[in-house]
């Protein structure tokens, strides 16, 4: 196994050194970019398969829209329902699961709503709503926002009122707002660990499997947009599910914590 992957790596390295870098556009979610993993993967992708991946860092909603309009070659997002709807409209060829990370609920270190005592994510949200503790929502149709809405629905709480602030911005900007208001917020772990302006915030709840966040890779449909680089998209997919990617993704740590779990399966 090890020998095989060595040969593969060597073959890729040789191939990579000959191939001139081709430009490839991929829209990704802010949470993926803010995690810092992109900075680890992109140079390796360029080295291994000679593809210069240009990232457009936007929310899941806009990322899928860019793909639907044919302005990018592939999309890497985390919102299964929206992805399936997008595929259903003929925008992409297929959906390939790559890895997952998890969401956490961030809140004031003093935890005024008592979310820490909850056993499930929905209970934690119920506690926040019951206490009318300030909560910042992304409100931008992103994957994180959709996850948050699904959790509120599951908790059977109407997320509205003075305590609930939908800022309509990316993960970083929303975290800045939460830090300023000393409010609760749902964030992905990677963005949180990389976030430099933590102020008085801390993790209030984590660990519920309901908070797992699956990232999937979706190549844009060349039948709809003939100009997209379908060959490059296939090459990139092959790399993303390779043992090499697994090693890099699982080896990526911040403060000693592994952020992503690789779970792509061979075709």
């Amino acid at each position, binding site marked *: 196994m090890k020998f095989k992957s060595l040969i593969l790596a060597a073959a890729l390295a040789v191939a990579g050194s000959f191939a001139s870098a081709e430009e490839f*556009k991929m829209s990704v979610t*802010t949470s993926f970019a*803010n995690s810092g993993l992109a900075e680890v993967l992109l140079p390796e992708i360029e080295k291994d398969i000679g593809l210069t991946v*240009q*990232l*457009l*860092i936007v929310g899941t909603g806009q990322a899928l829209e860019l793909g*639907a*309009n*044919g*302005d990018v070659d592939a999309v890497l997002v985390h919102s299964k329902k929206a992805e399936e709807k997008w595929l259903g409209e003929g925008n992409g060829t297929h959906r390939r699961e790559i890895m997952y990370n998890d969401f956490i609920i961030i809140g004031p270190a003093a935890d005024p709503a008592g979310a820490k005592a909850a056993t499930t994510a929905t209970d934690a949200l119920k506690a926040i709503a019951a206490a009318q503790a300030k909560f910042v929502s992304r409100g931008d149709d992103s994957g994180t926002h959709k996850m948050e809405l699904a959790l509120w629905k599951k908790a059977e709480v109407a997320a509205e009122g003075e305590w609930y602030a939908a800022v309509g911005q*990316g*993960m*970083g*900007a929303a*975290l*800045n707002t939460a*830090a300023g208001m000393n409010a609760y917020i749902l964030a992905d772990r990677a963005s949180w660990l*990389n*976030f*430099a*302006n*933590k102020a008085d915030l801390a993790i209030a709840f984590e660990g519920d499997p309901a908070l797992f966040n699956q990232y999937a890779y979706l190549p844009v449909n060349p039948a709809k*947009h003939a*100009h997209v680089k379908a060959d490059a998209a296939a090459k990139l997919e092959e790399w993303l599910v390779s043992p090499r990617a697994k090693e890099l993704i699982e080896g990526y740590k911040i403060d000693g914590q592994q952020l992503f779990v690789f779970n792509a399966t061979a075709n």
Partner: protein
Amino acid sequence: MEKIWEGLTQAAMLIVGFDPDLMEITLLSLRVTITATLIASAIGLPLGAWLVVNRFRFRRVVIAIINALMGLPPVVVGLFVYVLLSRSGPFGVLGLLFTPTAMIIAQVIIITPIIVSISHQAIRELWADYHDLLISLNATRRQRIATLIMDGRRALLTASLAGFGRAIGEVGAIMIVGGNIDHATRVLTTAIALETGKGEFGMALALGFILIGLAIIVNLGVHMLSRTERGSRW
């Protein structure tokens, strides 16, 4: 307050160290904005003069619209240019989206109304002085416009510099049509937005200081080259 010092020291370190990434985004900022300013001036200055020397039926309406367009939100311009340049839009085949060219187009749309409006204002006053002379010389309309632009060049420089100022600090439109792609379309303002999103306020402020410094240098440079605002001259 502490963040501001952090920003200043970080800015100094970036500049002294000739940080290659900083050089790249700074040069792209300059390239995009200077090009946009030149194009917008080429359209805006003659248009401003033309509006002065011509009397036509909807003149007042046209001037009011141009003045109103000065307040156009950059995000709206960005979205508009995105829709035009998107692969699904009318100019999609050109493949211009997420390139510096797209950013230049957006900035031209944003700053042309400013340049037209300020130059119109400046030339109108000059026209009051020149009106009788140019008419009596039987100058053609083209000659009148050329004379007014030539003799009003100092005031028109202000119009162009105002356009430059708006464009260099603009982020909403170029974020949408440029995409803030690392090593391709990232400029100072979009990098500032990115660093703010990461919570790296020190770095964001550092880039902000560099942006202001750059704007000052460009303005000083233009005044020096055009020999305006010198001590010995009124």
